[in-house]
């Protein structure tokens, strides 16, 4: 195993983590501010990917596709919040899980109804395709670097939004005490809609960015949703910083586990068996990580007690 391969795998882990952050940030924000468990977050990821694929196919522009993804996911998010989610804040988590699970089914079958069951096509734009040579002779796909950059920019923007703007103050206040900010004259209903739409837009952006290198199909959001929940549990529910650290930890653990565990087992057993055992253990790695974090910090890395 060479150093170049190791660094390339680290980059892969970071890229995966950044993508998970886009999903987890919205999820943790919505949970933190509104106390809502939103299982339909993965469906908004799918909405973003389909909107991007549709718009990019129509106009030939990937950038317009991204804008369409942000708009469509935010609009879908706002619509869902006003029509369904608003009725759930006062209810228990079980009702929320039930209702948002129903939303998954409705959005999935609705998307199939509109677009059909065959996967759609979304292409990496020509100016971002192909590999680039990094210092040290590492060949790395330019598009994956672009995802890392985009994710870091979104993270920075999100931190600035939360820490420095008026709406950020309201969001933080909403997390701390929702009755009090209502009494101070903040329109809570509108704030919740905005936060939900923001979270949805981030999920839609992730869906569109990832759609270009994966398949855009119905049901693509659910596997990512599970990972996003792992991330926010590790990071501490409600914490954006926790989501970022958790996402990078999960991304690196998963990628490096898939890469290193079979190699490690090959030192002590036959190659075929090492592959089987290593792969099996690699798929468990992030859940083991989650269990370990929860043993030592039951509320996650940055969770408030």
């Amino acid at each position: 195993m060479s150093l170049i391969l190791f660094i390339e795998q680290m980059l892969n882990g970071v890229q995966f983590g950044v993508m998970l952050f886009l999903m987890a940030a919205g999820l943790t924000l919505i949970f933190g501010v509104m106390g809502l468990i939103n299982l339909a977050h993965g469906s908004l990821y799918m909405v973003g990917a389909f909107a991007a694929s549709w718009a990019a196919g129509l106009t030939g522009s990937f950038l317009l596709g991204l804008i369409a993804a942000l708009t469509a996911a935010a609009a879908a998010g706002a619509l869902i919040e006003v029509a369904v989610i608003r009725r759930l804040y006062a209810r228990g988590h079980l009702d929320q899980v039930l209702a948002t699970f129903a939303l998954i089914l409705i959005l999935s079958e609705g998307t199939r109804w509109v677009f059909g069951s065959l996967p759609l096509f979304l292409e990496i734009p020509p100016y971002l395709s192909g590999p680039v040579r990094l210092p040290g002779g590492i060949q790395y796909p330019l598009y994956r670097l672009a995802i890392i950059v985009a994710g870091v920019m979104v993270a920075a923007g999100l931190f600035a939004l939360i820490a420095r703007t008026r709406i950020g103050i309201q969001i933080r206040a909403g997390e701390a005490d929702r009755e009090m900010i209502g009494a101070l004259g903040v329109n809570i209903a509108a704030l919740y809609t905005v936060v939900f739409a923001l979270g949805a837009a981030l999920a839609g952006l992730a869906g569109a960015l990832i759609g270009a290198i994966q398949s855009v199909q119905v049901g693509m959001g659910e596997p990512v949703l599970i990972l996003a929940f792992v991330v926010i549990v590790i990071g501490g529910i409600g914490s954006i910083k926790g989501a970022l650290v958790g996402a990078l930890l999960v991304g690196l653990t998963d990628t490096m586990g898939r890469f290193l565990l079979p190699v490690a087992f090959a030192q002590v057993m036959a190659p075929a068996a090492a592959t089987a055992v290593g792969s099996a253990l690699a798929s468990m790695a992030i859940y083991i990580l989650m269990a370990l974090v929860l043993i030592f910090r039951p509320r996650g890395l940055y969770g408030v007690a």
Partner: protein
Amino acid sequence: MIVRTLAMAGALSLAAAGAQAEIKVGMSTTLSGGGAGLGIDVRDGFMLALEQSGRDDISVVIEDDQRKPDIAVQLSDKMIQSEKVDVLTGIIWSNLAMAVVPGAVAQGKFYLSPNAGPSALAGKGCHPNYFNVAWQNDNLHEAAGAYANDAGYKNSFILAPNYPAGVDALTGYKRFFKGALAGEVYTQLGQTDYAAEIAQIRASGADSVFFFLPGGMGISFLKQYADSGVGLPVVGPAFSFDQGILQAVGDAALGVVNTSQWSKDIDNPANVAFVASFQEKYGRLPSLYASQGFDTANLMLSALKVAEPSDADAFRAALEAADFASTRGKFAFGPNHHPIQDIYVREVIKEGDIYTNKIIGVALKDHADAYAVECKM
């Protein structure tokens, strides 16, 4: 013994009650969720053949198994016990087939598999009433291994998802491939990001890549592989190159070699007519799954001309004869009721705006599966 007696009693009561002798077929297949494209194609091919036969005494009960084994079992129980079907078909996925087929045939029903061909049902678990009209799971992978030898590859990197059909795939490839392995990786089932595996391929020093990643997994892998600039030749079974998903892969698939028992350009009258009529009826090109559904229905129709399913021995003998015009041309059953057929090498090309496959050679002639010897019927 008890099971057999019960089955015979059931058949007798059916024959007594059903004087009008309508044939009932139960099809549980995947019509929603990630794998829906495959089930829809099998269903459409099957129904097209029934329509063309002009028979109006056959009714088909179609249900969606959602790719879930527990639901598939419920559906087949319902079809057998309350719908009283004579023949079952439709299952796409091997894990669902393993859950349904043994129970269905033990109750005296006929099962015609239009897709899944797990090794367990071809070898020790074979059954007189179970017929596979598609292939045994290993077949296309074995053909890929044979092609890799012909192409002069010496050092392959191979990968497949970590589940029974994935293990069958790598086993099948290795059974025929004579070169060395630069690496062997099992990925997670449903995995969508292959950056880590592609980095390993780049570092492995391989001269070729074999992969079995059906459906969306294959789309993801091919797009990411093309973008990585690794550029080694890729070979795989047809499952990542069927008509349904090629359009989603785009240019990344062009020139990739894949193995299949069927292709739309196989030149025989049955296939030419099938491709034209499928396109006319559904407005899209058929996939290999559609051809398998079509062949399954035609096999059943050919047997129904000779005998009713209630006369199990005669019906079984008629199925074994496989006296129908397959879209694949030559088609026969081996002793374990799995096909003996040619497996072709295809290349992905672009016809106008449509990505499709073209036959460039034959990988294996009159190929049977490796498990037939273990089958004792």
